[in-house]
């Protein structure tokens, strides 16, 4: 269990028992047009062996957050404030050298598109073996053996033969398996999976997700699972963080958030998702409008230009006052909790079926 679910606990989680603890993270990029607030005051925790799902539209800051955890943001154009504590080590102030030791070792990342995430110029084997040699000091031979073992583990047939293949010689699903093998080769304590299955066929997707779950059990890693696909999240995550315009707007356990979502944005996400067994004539309800510009985000609640309940709140609060996100199970909305429940039960749930 993550601390997120401990609604009864003290408001400010210390992160002492969390493996990764992010506190009030702010990431800003300076661009030619101005300052982009990609992440704006984000906090979350992940425990060992658990999976945190982060959902949100593109540009909501979910990928930036995780790149920042690994220190892969461009230090020249971006500023990072807040805390990122991994296993007791503060990362925002860590040296590049220390970060290099962490990456691929203690923290590994799986990327969305395995075709572009592998270099086309080197063999899969070499690319997987590289971090192992670097972090463990293993010889080429040892690294090769370990790589083949990992390839086998992630379900690549004839791994010894495929070791010398180039990425383009692998199928999409195999590449993603290889990517997972690469991420896991050093037994990472934290695995960040950034939309790891988005580029794959649905059937392959399911295999990969199962594989990840199996491996998590075996290796006991914590996982941060980034996606925009709520269906995948329900399958994978323990806890859920919904992000909008660089901020967390709702969090709770997967069950809580998906069964009884409290934020109008989460409602929108759920309503815009087709479901098996749903009425074929039933219309999907996409969220009106488009994601806000992070260069010049709306005042107050960033969701207010797209929110249907601004008038319900009334008094112009939504556009003037930013609703806070309480600790634990919470949603950042000016609607009173009771009213949210009513609206969800009366208006939203019927649509979700």
């Amino acid at each position, binding site marked *: 269990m993550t601390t997120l679910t401990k609604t009864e606990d003290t408001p400010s989680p210390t992160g002492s028992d969390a493996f990764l603890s992010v506190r009030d993270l702010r990431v800003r990029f300076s661009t030619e047009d101005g300052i982009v607030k990609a992440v704006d005051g984000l906090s979350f925790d992940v425990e060992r062996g658990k999976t945190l799902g982060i959902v949100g539209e593109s540009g909501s800051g979910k990928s930036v957050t995780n790149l920042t955890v690994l220190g892969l943001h461009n230090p*020249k154009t971006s500023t990072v404030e807040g805390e990122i504590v991994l296993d007791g080590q503060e990362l925002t102030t860590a040296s590049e050298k220390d970060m*290099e030791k*962490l990456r*691929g070792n203690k923290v*590994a*990342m799986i990327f969305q598109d395995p075709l572009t995430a592998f*270099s086309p110029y*080197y063999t899969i084997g070499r690319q997987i073996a590289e971090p192992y040699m*670097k972090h463990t000091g293993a010889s080429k031979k040892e690294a090769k053996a370990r790589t083949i073992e990992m390839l086998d583990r992630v379900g690549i047939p004839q791994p010894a033969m495929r070791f010398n293949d180039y990425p383009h010689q692998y199928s999409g699903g195999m590449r993603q398996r290889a990517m997972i093998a*690469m991420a896991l080769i050093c037994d990472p304590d934290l695995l960040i999976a950034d939309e790891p299955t988005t580029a794959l066929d649905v059937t392959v997707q399911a295999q990969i997700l199962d594989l990840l779950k199996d491996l998590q059990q075996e290796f006991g890693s914590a996982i941060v699972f980034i996606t925009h696909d709520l269906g995948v999240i329900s399958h994978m995550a323990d806890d859920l963080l919904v992000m909008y315009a660089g901020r967390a707007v709702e969090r709770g356990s997967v069950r809580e958030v998906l069964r009884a979502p409290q934020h109008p944005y989460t409602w929108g996400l759920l309503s815009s998702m087709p479901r098996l067994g749903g009425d074929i004539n039933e219309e999907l309800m996409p969220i009106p409008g488009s994601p806000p510009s992070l260069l010049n985000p709306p005042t107050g609640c960033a969701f207010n230009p797209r929110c249907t309940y601004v008038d319900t709140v009334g008094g112009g609060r939504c556009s003037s006052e930013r609703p806070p996100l309480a600790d634990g199970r919470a949603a950042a909305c000016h609607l009173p909790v009771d009213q949210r429940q009513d609206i969800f039960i009366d208006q939203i749930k019927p649509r979700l079926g």
Partner: protein
Amino acid sequence: MLQFLIRRLTGAVMIMFLIGAFTFFLFYTVPQDFAALSCGKNCTPENIAVIRENLGLDKPITTQFWEFMVGIVAGRDFAAGSCPAPCLGQSFASGEFVWDSIMDRFPLTLSLTIGGLVIFLFLGLASGLLAAWKRGTAVDKTVSGASMVLSSFQIYFLGPIVLGLLVYQTGWMENPKYHEFTEDPLAWAVGLLIPWAVMATIFVAQYTRMSRSTMIEQLQEEHVRTARAKGMGRKYVFFRYAWRGSLTPIVTIIGMDLSSLLAGGVVTEFTFDLAGIGRLAVESSVTKDLPLTMGVMMFGAFFILILNIIVDLCYAYIDPRVRLA
């Protein structure tokens, strides 16, 4: 691979044949009598007839063409001696065998091109990589700015200035001169230093900008990010991952530049009073010297085709996705 080479070489031969035919018959569409042209002060009709006969211009055009083409494969016999294959004929103007003339000039053109290429590649790629590595810093801006300025220069502009400064004014260096590399490597290098430097100055900018921008592009590739994410050092990622990806566009540009350097060597050669293929090409076309024009054209085409094949082989070597078949 072998199949690829055979196919490409066959294509090259056919293209050369077409170029040869095109040049040959184009020559005859221009109503100029080379015999009359090459005839000196004593240009009597009798002398013109003798010249026509000597040059074989009295034979039907198709026969002349056939003899020329056969000569390439089998060699030919001329009054001035036998011309072994690949015989590109005998220059109307100088009476030299075209192949000999080309082989005589080629070392210079090659030295000029390769020497210049090595220098500007080295400098251009080094400064481009430096700028990419130090992207956004003062170093980057200085390098990028300088390359903008340099790229606006032309050989015929910069060449005389450098000559004026280093040779005419101060006498620090002699005028560029070609020595055989095999005879005296030092004299070879010293003699060509000024043209190399001038060529390098002009071309270096292009390579600086290009290597900088492709490196920056490559550094934004996802696989580069992956490599960083798995803990590989910045330098390692820069030189192994990003650089490897930059090679393909760079090789493409080098291939194109080599062709244009060889073809455009004429400006360099005239600027520095050197005798290379470019000069030969200009002389041959000015004097309507058919065999020489044909020879230079076909040799140039051959060289460029070979160069293209080499570039393709390089692609295959650099990028495993490229398969030669």
